[in-house]
């Protein structure tokens, strides 16, 4: 998966969780949880969906790396 695929995957997952928002308009550095009003259940669902779609385990200790769009793309591209 290249960076663009990952970005689209993140958008896809986020639009399922926050259907009223347009994640493509988000700046790469804002906290997704604040910008999209994600609670801890929403964020867990975000992590579950990402880890299933790209078959990667995301340890809880790494959650903070996924708080921004840029951070999530960089983390998942590795």
């Amino acid at each position, binding site marked *: 998966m290249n960076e663009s695929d990952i970005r689209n995957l993140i958008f896809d997952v986020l639009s399922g969780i*926050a*259907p*009223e928002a347009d994640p493509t308009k988000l700046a790469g550095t804002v906290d997704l*949880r*604040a910008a999209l*009003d994600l*609670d*801890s*259940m929403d964020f*867990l*669902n975000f*992590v*579950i969906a990402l*880890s*299933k779609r790209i078959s990667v*385990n*995301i*340890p*809880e*200790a790494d959650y903070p790396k996924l708080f921004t769009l840029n951070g999530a793309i960089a983390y998942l591209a590795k």
Partner: protein
Amino acid sequence: MSDFVMPSLGADMEKGTVVEWRIKPGSAVKRGDVVAVVETLKGAIEVEIFEEGTVAELIAKEGQEVPVGGVLARITRPGETAPAQPAPQPPLPATPQPKIPPPIISVTAPSARVKVSPAARRRAAERGIDPDRLTGTGIDGSVTLADVEAAPAPTPAEAALPKAAKPRWGFEPSEMRQAIAAAVSRSKREIPHYYLTTTIDMSAALHWLQAYNKERLPDKRLLPAVLALKATAKALRETPQLNGYWESGAFRAMERINIGWAVSLRGGGLIAPALRDVDRMTLPEVMAALRDLVARARGGGLRSSELTDPTFTVTSLGDRGAESVIGVIYPPQVAILGLGRISKRPWVVDNQVAARPLMAASLSADHRASDGHTGGLFLDALDRLLQEPDAL
């Protein structure tokens, strides 16, 4: 023969609209069957029946608005024979079904927001129609399921039009607001609340949780809320005076511990459906039930009993909320627990100040049903139980 009536799905409900029957005359029903989908101010709810028998007659029609207590259907009980003639129809307390004129698709986008019933919105999505562009024939000009069914299929040009921004599912935020207003007004008018607060050191619980989650894939992990819920249920076992209803001037304790979990809805609004028998579930079971419940609260598919079953409510602000919350009791319940955001703050441990993850817990309780002493015992039990997460 018995009447199946429009259930009251909370202190704030006065009426509902039957949007879909799941039974027909002759259908056998048993306790717990979903028999209809009813639209309320809180969205479309799957309504269950609580008796056994055979459907003799459907009284309410799809699309019809019926007040709470109004007859929806007649049920023949087991052993009864259906009457030779249909029983005389009771006077319908509801508004008559309006005649449905052919819908027109307006060329311009409506200036004001059009009311669209949840069922109509879903059906419109299936048909590729923008329901906000239809002319409604329902009460207050709302777009009903029938309007959507009768609308012509979209032309390619219409299908290409941008859709008006709207929540994907559900409820009308303004109507939901009214429902909440009615419930909290009644609560503050009728219930003499008393309030207790305490601060709970969550180190042990979070430490346990971290170790638990570390060994599991994301979909098997638990949230701190799960520990708090289970501890709440066990604490309620010790203080049954807080688990039940204030009815007809007296407290009625409930055997089952069904915790209403306050879920904030996107687009505004709040609903607190029940997690049933939390005291008897394992932590992974509580987590699975919580995920399912929150998903259905936000996406549709709550059942009527889930709105009426809570015997106690928990409102939790999660990991980004305020430091503490003091809740408003949802009548006829007699208490609500408010959990603030867990955050690191100074705390005295062994005569030393240490940074600890702390959670403010508050209890609002009905002073008619219990006294502060009972509330204090409950918060003490909650604290104690959260210090031993292994035993939860």
